[in-house]
């Protein structure tokens, strides 16, 4: 599996994503600068967490307008896999690759802690190595992770099996406890929790590994 990590200014989880991909795939991902207009030939593009462009407008809003996002959209249109984590999820909703929006946490504070997620859907490239209904522990670290979409969209996401992860114990007020969703073609996943932070037992657990294994198996 060949992968790329997009480097937005101040998207500070780019190194974490790189290290996790290296560890899981045995291959270093390409690090792609936000001003590049082309992607290398890869199977997976990761939009990492962080504070792209300082999150000075809405989170992810400026990154969604960056040059590289045209290439990411083209990659997704061709069916290429895209994983957006935390700020990356915000970039995906801001650029229209995923529906809905991520608002300020209901508690109005940044929240960093391990949360329990229930894996809701496993028939997709990102979660096939989990069991349906499995509970996993993955950290969140965000101030704006409160997922919002209108009722019709939420019904459609649920009806089409596009809600992949749900919170058990909602940390941010997200509609219907949604933690991660797919696009309609099921090749773009956005999630607020950080699977790349749980691939190493020394630093908090290994519950994120199955997500990377799923992608490796799908794409190899």
């Amino acid at each position, binding site marked *: 599996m060949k992968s790329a990590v997009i480097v937005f200014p101040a998207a500070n989880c780019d190194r974490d994503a790189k290290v996790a991909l290296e560890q899981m795939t045995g291959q270093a991902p390409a690090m792609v600068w936000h001003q590049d207009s082309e992607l290398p030939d890869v199977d997976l593009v990761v939009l990492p967490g962080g504070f792209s462009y300082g999150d000075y407008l809405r989170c992810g809003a400026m990154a969604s307008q960056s040059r590289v996002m045209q290439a990411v959209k083209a990659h997704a249109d061709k069916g290429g896999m895209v994983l957006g984590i935390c700020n990356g999820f915000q970039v995906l909703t801001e650029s229209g690759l995923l529906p809905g929006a991520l608002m300020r946490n209901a508690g109005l504070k*940044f929240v960093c802690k391990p949360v329990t997620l229930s894996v809701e859907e496993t028939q997709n490239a990102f979660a096939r190595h989990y069991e349906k209904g499995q509970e996993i522990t993955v950290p969140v670290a965000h101030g704006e992770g409160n997922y919002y979409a209108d009722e019709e969209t939420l019904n459609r996401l649920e009806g089409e099996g596009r809600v992949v992860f749900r919170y058990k114990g909602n940390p941010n007020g997200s509609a219907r406890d949604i933690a991660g969703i797919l696009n309609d073609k099921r090749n773009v996943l956005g999630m607020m929790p950080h699977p790349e932070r749980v691939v190493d037992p020394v630093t908090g657990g290994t519950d994120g590994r199955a997500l990377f294994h799923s992608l490796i198996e799908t794409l190899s």
Partner: protein
Amino acid sequence: MTAITPEMVKDHGLSESEYQKILDLMGRTPTLVELGVFSVMWSEHCSYKSTRAHLKKLPTKAPWVLQGPGENAGVIDIGDGDAAIFKMESHNHPSFIEPYQGAATGVGGIMRDVFTMGARPIAMMNALRFGEPSHPKTRHLVSGVVSGIGGYGNCMGVPTVGGEVNFHKSYNGNILVNAMCVGLAKADNIFYSAAKGAGNPVVYIGSKTGRDGIHGATMASAEFDDASEEKRPTVQVGDPFTEKLLLEACLELMATDAIIAIQDMGAAGLTSSSAEMGDKGGSGIELDLDKVPQREANMTAYEMMLSESQERMLAVLKPGREAEAEAIFKKWELDFAVIGVTTDTRRLVVKHKAEVVADMPITALSDEAPVYERPYQPREPKGGDVSFDKSKSVLASLKAILAAPDMASRRWIWEQYDNSVMNDTVQHPGGDAAVVRVHGSSKALAITTDVTPRYAKADPYQGGAQAVAESYRNITAVGGTPLAVTDNLNYGNPQKPEIMWEIVAGIDGIGAACRALDYPVIGGNCSLYNETNGEGILPTPAIGGVGLLKDVTKMATVAFKRQGDVVIVIGETKGHLGQSIYLREIEGREDGPAPRVDPALEKKHGDFVRGLIEQSRVDTCHDVSDGGLLVAVAEMAIGGGIGASIGVAGLPEPIPFWFGEDQARYVIAAPFEEADRIIEEARAAYISVAALGKTGGDRLVLEDSNSVSIAALKAAHEGWFPNFMSGEEIPMTN
């Protein structure tokens, strides 16, 4: 040219004798710009004029110390060619006036001190002191400071991994915000601030210069009064996004060999960075202010020299490398400008609009800065009444103490900090010390911040020594070898002899403990004049300690891990109730003498406990500090969600035994056979040791009779902070 009047001299915080010294050094009347430069360079904040003579007494050397005090941060060798670079610094005055920006820029400033030396910051810590919980400003200040620390650190992508928080009425009008940054570099690629050589380009990098923070260093060197809020314009505004770009750009430039010297523009901005770099390099510096990137129109030379705009650096490059450096900064969309040149004149010359606005000998700003041997007046360490009501229930007191403002869980705070970004956090906040892995290796750094201000008030010497001892224990308790400390000395007005004595005795106590523990001081910061309307804070010499775990898999945490482990206390419990949390929270008195520190005993017990952890024989350990033995056991039970049954046969006085704050103690837990061996070995080494009981169940059972559920203790411990911050509960005065 503006004439200098006595009022202007006074407004610049300079005394008459200091102004006379300026006249003598210059041989003429200074210009306004020069007066401003002297005022900040000779301020307490920059010159350490009250403490310098005493700080010299601190031990600063060890074979593993690569750089002691005097640079932007201290550096230690952690093996394999790696170096840890760290420092702690205060941002007290700005944080009281504007808590969010004050705390945020405190974080930003200390990070720059570390990355200007070539290190990537890997962990942030803090030491915070607020007024009593019932004071009307306290919640506002807690909320603002915590958001400010989180807002800056989270955006930087550097984990904030721990710290400490106290509440006390002496901080009602003067909170303390001390931030510590730890970074990693290669030992052979560390950058210093000595601008050696003449004819080298002086370059300005980072944000543009604005009018914010003018005279911040002078503000930080004066007492507060009721009009202090009017000083809000002197508080700087932080931009963590720009700082993140500056970090990456600087590290990219540092990977080349284009830099001769580099220093961040912190307090006193362009003035102190240029003067200090010239001073250390034995050179002169000539600046052309017309070339300084400016955020606002029509800035005067005075404003530019004294601006404390954030996210700026000054560097001296090798000649001919400007274009290469500029390309890096342009890529990161940062300002870059050659604003001057080094000279061989040993003078700081500043030009603006084709006029020389300052021309002064650099040594006048450094070596010639005033040093005061301020008079001090010792007072007897506090004695007093440590009597207590013997009929009080031990377990009811335990529950009350676990929910006291100084003792309750700080989860409400640390969950607002990204403490796992960078993916190397091994121990998150809430333990004895944070543990952060050295990226790509199996070793790790243990980091802690400590001081017990109420001890330092009762006995400034013991308080200084105890801060070091507790730091040493906290690092030991996770399995780390303590290597070095940075100190952040927060005190009141040094011109009062009784305060000056607190400072002198505190430094002596720190020095004695550091010397005995082989735990040198490699940097630090003094924050004096922490007074409002003439009332000083509790003396608060915060110690930031760093230690090394050679193998991160050989580590201990506080949480009980198994049922049936034997709970053992290492170190003697005499039942010292003076200045204890028990006396304050249960008897309502801040009374009695501070506990005495015996550094030799600290070392002996520390080496023993660390050895057990390093040999993988113990994975559960907690130092005994605030609240005493029973509080330590309760925290271990809450952490693991496992109860314990403990007791000591024939205890004459249970209250001092369970709640006394004797030093040099640890609680460990180990399986039965291992525990037997440990007790035997401790006895053979003449170390005081006792088995207290066994882990198991879901209750804390005392002396086989009374008990309390771990769930109830946890609810009390976890509940106070969120209730307090929600405003639903008006807290008791401490």
